[in-house]
């Protein structure tokens, strides 16, 4: 099946720092989404981005489908950005399921 690899697995930042999270996938995909799971377990959709670039405030994401990767940029990080960031993809010709990576655990210290 499709492999979704996220890096780094863990990231510790000081408040105000910038970071880049990466998602590599092994096959062509219809759909790619980024999620943030906060320390209380709530999973929030950040971006629906099968290709191209999108920005939302301090966050932006870029997907290069032909090269099978996506990047999530966090600028001027805040303590509320802490949590786990998941990339999830849907395989072309797949059964409409999203396959999640193992996530990047981000800790932002004050």
């Amino acid at each position, binding site marked *: 099946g499709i492999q979704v690899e996220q890096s780094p697995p863990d990231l510790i930042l000081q408040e105000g720092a910038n970071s880049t999270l990466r998602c590599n996938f092994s096959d062509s995909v*219809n*759909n790619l*989404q980024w*999620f943030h799971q906060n320390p209380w*377990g*709530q*999973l*929030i*959709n950040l971006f*629906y981005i099968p290709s191209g670039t999108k920005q939302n405030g301090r966050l932006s994401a870029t997907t290069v489908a032909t090269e099978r990767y996506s990047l999530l940029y966090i600028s001027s990080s805040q303590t509320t950005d802490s949590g786990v960031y*998941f990339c*999830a993809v*849907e395989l072309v010709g797949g*059964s*409409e*399921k*999203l*396959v*999640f*990576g*193992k*996530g990047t655990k981000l800790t932002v210290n004050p």
Partner: protein
Amino acid sequence: DAGVTQSPTHLIKTRGQHVTLRCSPISGHKSVSWYQQVLGQGPQFIFQYYEKEERGRGNFPDRFSARQFPNYSSELNVNALLLGDSALYLCASSWGRSRNSPLHFGNGTRLTVT
């Protein structure tokens, strides 16, 4: 507008029992999906329903079943519970089929099997 709502929030069951988890999608959303998340891992797909029909099924045993009602709400049923079924069960809704629209998750039901 209310987001995706799930009930109950927490549940403790004994091995061999049956459980029913409930989900109400965002108003106007016609697709509901169920995911299982065990500690330290990403969510794993169980089912997707669109317009009341099953559109996708993950690699879960037949003890897991689901359905979607005419008002687009959904139930996930698990029979003959095992200790390994302990997890966070997440429901997600989207306005269309998953490849066309972003997924929005509820807060989940934390199931503990003892």
